[in-house]
């Protein structure tokens, strides 16, 4: 099978949605293209999990640029899955905004280009080309973040673009230094695999500088503290399906690029990549856990929880045990599916109540049972309540940390996770079950506190159900092919 085929559906869809039909076909085109990508990605992941190769049809010229292993297949699968559910969700969600056909076409064109740029990240093997598609993810999503065109959305988009590109500038220098390190170590092909082979001969100082530059540069886009300041803005101001893409898979696929450097760094004694990951990861988890307590906007709540989860994943990698690596991969999967679900629930809340303020939303479950139930489920799932998916992976990480003897780190991590749990649940609980401020007066008035219920669009409910399936299933059972894929992905993190 030709892996490059994966990139065509979004590109073609991006062109197709621009055709001005009288009744816009753009939403269905996007859904169909995402479904095709999902089918292709699932087939590819299946084949890789079974120990096969997906690049055998390509000649050497292509293999210089393209490589797919367990780790990339895992990320591809996630992008395809979240991309599909978000596309389904978009159908009903965007129909609520009374958009002009032109604006809707712009949304879907950007959506498909964004998916395209993200799919290219795990497919490409040449680091500088990966850097370019990372840039493209920023640029393709910038207009999606500013889509609502309010003052806040424009501010968020501007911050997003400027800080991400600033980080990208630093990362570019990092990748060039990495190339220089390779040349100084005798050369080789500049791909992820080639880097691992050449790593033992590279000068430590160059390798370390390159790693730090890339960690800081791309860490900006992953949302690691202290480079996270743009993330809660952008991830809360964008339309909800876009938030799901940004938080659920964009951060993860950028983190994937950083993860690719760990096996390279391990080849050189004294390079200390793990220590850096541990420090940055813990700082991110801790800061996000405390910031979660004081948010006033429920989409920002979930955005900060993304910072927290990126920190957890990086900390798990930093623990340096193969069990922790497996836990980190599991956490990547669970975070993506759960966080996208959370943003669908947040979008449903926004459709129901028309405000993003936590203080203004009370008694959601009475106004819209679907949105309320989804928000509670999302809150529980993302903060790691058993028996949902994230509980399992966080538990695996903590267990691996203890087994490895990192008591302080594991203790801190557990404490931060607990704080974040309360941070999320306090807000969610008040929003869903809290008595509204004017409920008492209404009760006297009409004898009922129900102000009228709101019915979510069908596609939104469908997307919520689709996204909830893996959150429920992965908490109790990991299918064999996925387990194989996770094992392969975790193995790709060490030499």
């Amino acid at each position: 099978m030709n892996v490059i085929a994966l990139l065509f559906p979004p590109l073609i869809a991006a062109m197709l949605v621009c055709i001005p039909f009288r009744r816009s076909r753009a939403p269905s085109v996007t859904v169909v293209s995402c479904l095709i990508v999902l089918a292709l990605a699932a087939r590819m992941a299946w084949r890789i999990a079974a120990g096969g190769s997906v690049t055998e049809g390509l000649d050497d010229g292509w293999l210089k640029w393209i490589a797919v292993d367990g780790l990339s297949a895992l990320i591809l699968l996630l992008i395809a899955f979240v991309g599909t559910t978000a596309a389904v969700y978009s159908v009903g969600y965007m129909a609520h905004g009374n958009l002009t056909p032109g604006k809707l076409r712009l949304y879907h064109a950007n959506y498909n280009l964004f998916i395209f740029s993200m799919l290219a990240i795990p497919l490409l093997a040449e680091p500088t080309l990966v850097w370019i598609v990372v840039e493209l993810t920023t640029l393709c999503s910038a207009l999606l973040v500013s889509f609502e065109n309010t003052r806040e959305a424009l501010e968020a988009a501007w911050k997003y673009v400027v800080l991400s590109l600033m980080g990208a500038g630093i990362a570019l220098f990092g990748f060039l230094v990495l190339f220089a390190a390779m040349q100084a170590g005798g050369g080789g092909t500049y791909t992820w695999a080639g880097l691992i082979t050449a790593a033992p001969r590279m000068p430590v100082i160059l390798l370390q500088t390159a790693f730090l530059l890339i960690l800081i540069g791309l860490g900006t886009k992953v949302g690691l503290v202290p480079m996270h300041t743009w993330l809660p803005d952008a991830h809360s101001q964008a339309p909800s399906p876009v938030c799901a893409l940004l938080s659920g898979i964009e951060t993860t696929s950028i983190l994937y690029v950083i993860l690719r450097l760990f096996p390279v760094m391990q080849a050189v004694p004294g390079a200390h990549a793990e220590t850096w990951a541990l420090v940055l990861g813990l700082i991110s988890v801790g800061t996000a856990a405390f910031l979660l307590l004081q948010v006033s906007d429920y989409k920002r709540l979930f955005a900060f929880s993304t910072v927290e989860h990126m920190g957890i994943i990086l900390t798990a990698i930093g623990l340096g045990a193969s069990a922790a690596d497996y836990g980190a991969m599991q956490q990547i999967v669970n975070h993506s599916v759960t966080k996208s679900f959370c943003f669908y629930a947040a979008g449903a809340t926004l459709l129901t109540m028309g405000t993003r303020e936590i203080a203004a939303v009370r008694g959601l479950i009475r106004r819209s049972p679907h949105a309320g139930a989804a928000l509670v489920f999302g809150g529980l799932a993302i903060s790691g309540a058993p028996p949902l998916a994230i509980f399992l992976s966080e538990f695996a990480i903590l267990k691996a940390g203890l087994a490895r003897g990192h008591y302080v780190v594991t203790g801190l991590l557990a404490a931060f996770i607990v704080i974040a749990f309360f941070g999320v649940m306090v807000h969610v609980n008040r929003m869903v079950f809290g008595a509204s401020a004017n409920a008492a007066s209404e009760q006297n008035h009409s004898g009922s506190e129900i102000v009228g219920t709101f019915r979510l669009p069908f596609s939104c409910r469908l997307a919520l159900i689709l996204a909830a399936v893996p959150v429920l299933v992965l908490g109790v059972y990991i299918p064999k092919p996925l387990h194989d894929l996770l094992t392969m992905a975790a193995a790709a993190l060490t030499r």
Partner: protein
Amino acid sequence: MSDTTKQLLENLNALAAGLFLLTAFGIVAMRQARGCLNLFILQSLLLAASAALLGLRFGAHHLYGVALVNLISKPIIVPWLLRKTSPAGIYTRREIDQVLNIPTALLIALALVIGAYFLGVPLANAAGPEFHGPNVPIGIAGLLLGAFTLTVRREAMPLLIGLLAMENGAFLAGISIARDLGMLVELAIATDGLIIVFIMGVLVRAVQKQIGTTAIGELASLKEAVSQPPVSKAMP
């Protein structure tokens, strides 16, 4: 190639790199938006000159390509794209209140350059004996000064120029230490700069239309724990 020619080429390259550093300082300090753009164009020309000289000196022919791409994309296409996308008034804007006054900003910039030397020289030494030229430290300085520009300016145009200047800085170091990167990659990086200009231009236009200013640095309503956050009509 005789030793004198080699020496001459290296000296010329050092001259171009030195002037590159001066333009980076200029971008930090220049108040007029138009002046910033002109300085950036000059900087790109110097980058092209450095690439061509290094290509000649080390016989790395595809560096001519880098020079050519820089010559075409930055002085010609970037201003054209900006004219197409951003609001007309953007060139004539003059920034009155910067975050720091200009002498302070320049002093900090100077400190950054000294830092860049301490960072860059060991790096260049580790990369190999033929990397002794000024490109690596000055490239890092360009990167840092671009980032510094981003933190002290508020007007859209200087911010955009700051971003592009960062990339120029990374490139100036890159053409010296990563000479054989390959044409495709360099072309892609150059195209990427153009997409940046396009997207930022569109954003600036939207801001201008919505808010009536291009002083984007003054937008600061998104924060934590605001007692009364602005309620936007958040649909869809």
